[in-house]
């Protein structure tokens, strides 16, 4: 196995593009090493992106935030400005694994593992996150919900490497939240998860919403119908009718699997429950109540 430590993303992309056999990007390695050790993959080339300066930091920019692809999740929780602007995204990233895993795991690795249960992904999608992708033909920016196309499948072309994730500047009167359901309180895979981001107007009426669900379909799904169900309403009076509509829209977007961790009925029911609860938290954070 060839191990390379490029110092620019361009160089990493070239290495990946020119690779003959099986080649993998290495970020925190918490998925990649598990797959290597179980024999699922036998890389001929591993490209470690942790020596690329552009992947290493969290920057506050005019447009919002830029989180490098090698930034471990623990560093997100240490960044006060990021935590204040996007608490849902940071909380979701911090749910990944134990402290040991947090020291290593990245949100880009979480995304590129292409699991529908990836914890940081619904929160990123709800927040309107974008991936900055560098490839042999240059650079492009893609909405996070367009990156994964199925379980283990990605829209990245050969040689393309994600350099960073961007989050928009949080609009005024906005808030985000993420919740997951697992059978225990730590170290488990989501059975259902929900990320919600809301923007209110001056009268605390929801003006804009994004709702994303995890582990209930082949990929994390953005559910525009769920957003539509709550736009134009207030949640502070715990308006049951609006909440029912939100839950129903979420249920309609679910096509989950049935397994020992959760039945289809259970996942569909809980998707609505989590979306409602996450919406309430996001509403509060937006200054609604």
């Amino acid at each position, binding site marked *: *196995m*060839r*191990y390379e*430590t490029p110092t620019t993303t361009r160089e990493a992309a070239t290495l990946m593009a020119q690779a003959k056999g099986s080649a993998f990007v*290495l970020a925190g*390695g*918490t998925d990649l*090493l*598990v797959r*290597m*050790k*179980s024999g699922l993959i036998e*890389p001929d080339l*591993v490209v*470690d992106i*942790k020596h690329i300066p552009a992947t290493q930091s969290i920057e506050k920019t005019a447009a919002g935030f830029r989180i490098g692809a090698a930034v*471990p999740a*623990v560093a997100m929780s240490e960044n006060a400005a990021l935590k204040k602007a996007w608490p849902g995204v940071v909380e979701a990233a911090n749910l990944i*694994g*134990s*402290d*040991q*895993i947090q*020291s*290593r795991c990245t949100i880009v690795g979480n995304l590129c593992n292409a699991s529908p249960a990836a914890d940081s992904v619904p929160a990123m999608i709800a927040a309107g996150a974008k991936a900055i992708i560098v490839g042999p033909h240059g650079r492009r920016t893609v909405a996070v919900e367009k990156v994964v196309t199925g379980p283990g499948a990605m829209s990245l072309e050969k040689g393309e490497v994600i350099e960073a994730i961007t989050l928009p500047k949080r609009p005024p009167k906005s808030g985000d939240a993420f919740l997951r359901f697992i059978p225990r309180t*730590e*170290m488990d895979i989501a059975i259902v998860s929900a990320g919600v981001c809301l923007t209110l107007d001056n009268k605390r009426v929801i003006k804009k919403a994004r709702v994303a669900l995890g582990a209930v379909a082949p990929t994390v799904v953005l559910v525009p119908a769920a957003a539509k169900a709550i736009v134009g309403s207030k949640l502070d009076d715990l308006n049951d009718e609006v909440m029912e509509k939100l839950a129903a829209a979420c249920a309609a977007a679910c096509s989950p699997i049935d397994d020992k961790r959760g039945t289809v009925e259970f996942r569909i029911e809980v998707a609505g429950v989590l979306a409602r609860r996450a919406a309430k938290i996001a509403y509060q954070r937006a200054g609604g109540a």
Partner: protein
Amino acid sequence: MSAVLVSTTVNGDQTEFVCQTDETLLDVLRNRLGLTGSKEGCGTGDCGACSVIVDGRLVCSCLVLGVEAEGSEVNTIEGLADGDNLHPLQSKFIEHAALQCGVCTPGFLIAAKVLLDRNPNPSDVEIRFALAGNLCRCTGYDKIVRAVKAAAKEVRKRR
């Protein structure tokens, strides 16, 4: 083959080793450097028995490649005691009988050290969350939590 020369600092000592590119840091520590304190329980990041500190951060050494340690500072259980003087965590684990077979113990001690370095006065809940990445088949965890609390008190006294 793909053997690589790696330079690191292990427990304060400048250390060089040669390893295969796909070899884990845990295997390097145990098989090449003779530091067998870190254990392999699962090899997949779930049990924490292989916990070490790399550049100040707690990691599972079974999920780090040896080659990734180039230029890094690695701290293992072998460096926890100060010569013959045990770290308060080690003394309190003995005092509180926070171990039986002992396989998980080096990992718990390292994870607890990282916790106390950051937070010398953790609550029970904080201790349990900080140690959630470490599994123990023997003790039932209660004695471990008590030992960490007692060690925290000791650490605070010495400050």
